[in-house]
């Protein structure tokens, strides 16, 4: 879908945003989990929460692919499951096709299921080992009154062919397939009821390199054929860049940067995005210097930093404002502090200008770019609380 647009020309983006309303829109979405606590703590009210998703706004257009990237524990999987209503949100609202789906009766929920589908990371764990492929693919057709009996069997055969398997595979069990074939089955289940939106949670990260490419190409083909929208959750930035129209970067339950993929990759503004981009191993050239490694590990989502979530590891830490004030997502365009990324980010384009729709949450955006270039962050141990 983006094939005809050139790499350098920024997407105007505004007409899609105003013309049609988005397919899915989440506002200030939160999902907290209770930590394991004993009875006494529960009575004393000392219950702690893991803030897996902590106030996320996002919208997904029709036939669009939105990539969500982040490291393990950043809340991307929880975000996907909350958007697909597999988890009940703790706070915020979700609208789907103009209707509020935050609270639904079980009947309404069942109807919603036929429009939002999920592809899971582990294709073996997500297929019931005691069901044949025919049963696994036939079930959604039955539940949503799409086909029964002979018609169902025919539809299952069609689906199997659609994802590159044989109709005769319907009588086999999941363990009889290879990893890539299992993921094809998972995808067939997701498209079986022709949904509008598929939330794919790391659909290729458990697969071998050559199989990954097969699955990614297939997902692209199916998107065109069935007019699908994707939320593509992954930790692999190269894969996300390949498949997405827009990209969101998540850290500790927050979106720290989002925008059209060209903007994110050619002009990354958040220090975390830059660090991620520069730490990807690349096969294109032998790096002259080794990848800049981020220091430390992410803080616990039970007790996140009060200011910027990245402030404890940030290589561009400014001062107390980073530790104290939570930066909001703001457009990057024309911000004084928006500057080119350092040279170790391989995708950087110097003359790229970010569109309005490119947002980042960083205190640097309000400061001057010259200051940012020359800034030396204090060591991690010497930062304020």
């Amino acid at each position: 879908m983006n094939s005809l647009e050139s790499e350098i020309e920024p997407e105007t983006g505004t007409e899609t945003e105003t013309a049609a309303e988005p397919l899915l829109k989440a506002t200030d979405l939160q999902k907290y989990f209770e930590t394991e606590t004993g009875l006494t703590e529960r009575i004393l009210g000392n219950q702690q929460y893991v803030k897996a998703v902590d106030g996320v706004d996002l919208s997904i257009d029709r036939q669009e692919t939105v990539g969500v990237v982040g490291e393990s524990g950043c809340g991307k999987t929880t975000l996907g499951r909350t958007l697909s209503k597999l988890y009940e949100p703790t706070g915020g609202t979700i609208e789907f096709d103009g209707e509020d789906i935050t609270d639904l009766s079980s009947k309404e929920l069942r109807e919603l299921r036929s429009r939002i589908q999920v592809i899971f990371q582990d294709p073996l764990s997500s297929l019931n080992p005691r069901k044949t492929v025919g049963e696994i693919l036939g079930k959604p057709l039955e539940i949503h009154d799409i086909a029964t009996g002979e018609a169902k069997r025919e539809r299952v055969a069609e689906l199997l062919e659609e994802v590159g398997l044989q109709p005769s595979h319907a009588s086999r069990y999941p363990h009889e397939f290879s990893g890539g074939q299992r993921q094809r089955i998972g995808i067939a289940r997701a498209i079986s009821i022709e949904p509008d939106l598929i939330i794919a949670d790391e659909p290729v990260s458990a697969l071998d390199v050559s199989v990954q490419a097969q699955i990614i190409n297939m997902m692209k083909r199916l998107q065109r054929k069935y007019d699908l929208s994707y939320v593509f959750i992954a930790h692999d930035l190269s894969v996300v860049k390949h498949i997405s129209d827009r990209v969101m970067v998540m850290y500790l339950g927050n979106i720290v940067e989002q925008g059209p993929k060209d903007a994110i990759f050619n002009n990354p503004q958040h220090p975390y995005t830059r660090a991620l981009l520069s730490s990807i191993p690349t096969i294109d050239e032998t790096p002259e210097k080794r990848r800049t490694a981020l220091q430390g590990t992410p803080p616990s989502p039970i007790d996140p930093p009060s200011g910027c979530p990245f402030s404890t590891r940030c290589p561009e830490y400014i001062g107390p404002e980073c530790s104290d004030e939570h930066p909001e997502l703001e457009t990057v365009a024309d911000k004084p502090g928006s500057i080119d990324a350092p040279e170790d980010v391989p995708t950087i384009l110097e003359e790229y200008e970010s569109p309005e729709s490119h947002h980042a949450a960083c205190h640097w955006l309000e400061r001057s770019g010259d200051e940012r270039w020359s800034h030396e962050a204090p060591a991690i141990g010497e930062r304020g609380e």
Partner: protein
Amino acid sequence: MSNPMLEIENLHVEFETEDESVQAVDGISFEIHPGEVYGIVGESGSGKSVTALSIMALLDSNANVTADRVRFDGTDLLSKTDSEMRSIRGGEISMIFQDPMNSLNPVITVGEQIAEVVRHHGDVNESTNLVQEMRRKYVTGTSADSASWRRAVELLETVGIPDPETRAQEYPHQLSGGMRQRVMIAQALAGDPSLILADEPTTALDVSIEAQILNQLLDLRDEFGVSVLLITHDLGVVRETCDRVAVMYAGELMEKAAVEELFEDPQHPYTRGLMQSIPRLTDDREMLDVIEGSVPNLAAKPPGCPFQDRCAWAFEACTQPLEEHEVDPGHDVACHLHREDIPEELGEWNSPTAVRTDGGDDR
């Protein structure tokens, strides 16, 4: 160059099951020089992990290992007895596994786990009898005053763990994934090895942590001059870390070369296919180029080249046994396309524009 640290010649590993025998490793040869990081890259089922385990003699009894030569630092490993192998394992050769949570003992402090290796392989003159070991591990908890414990703390510091005295007294579950992998590396270093076998050491880690760990490995190589056999599925990791690399497919080595050469000038259709199927940050292909089909069943491999069914350039000769062709000094390719007498219409296969994939997903 000096004598190789590890020499493998014509290694075969066969697994016997009830009704079939599987050739997991089918006649591979390579050598690793002192201070070198050697990569073996391949997909799952290619036999790369089995290769490492067979060098360490850690395979189950249903595995049948044969080779013309497995020499480590000039001595023959195949003729070693069990007890001789035990003293080599963790000592001169040590191993790092993919999942540090599963390979560290959950109920023993990490410091004690490293100290144990020191006692067994170092010259600290501390008793390693069973009663002593049990007392250290379960009763006194830490042997803080002993030389082995002090060495363990030192090692933790070497692998970049902050506040090593405190960390040494913690249990594996109290550490993050990256920290645990550093502990594994410290443990691997404890026996003062000259060769480390690292089996997917960063696969379970996030990219930013992966970079830290790989840098750590390279620093250790520079500092102590150990050789590293790095087993991975990730071509990016290979390019960033290794000096030389072998590409493995269905138990056989397809291509061996210096890293730079392999990536600039891959000479095997499989290597090329792999590289083209990876999405890159700097490309804007609409569809990825795909290797059709899937890995052959190891119990029923076709005769000749194992890649022939998926290869866009396969011709009659591909059913004949593979032989290595040296295309450049130090660059060997096991592919019949490098023979003198290939059919004329295949002559163009080596031109830079030669593409024989349709860009679709396979059927």
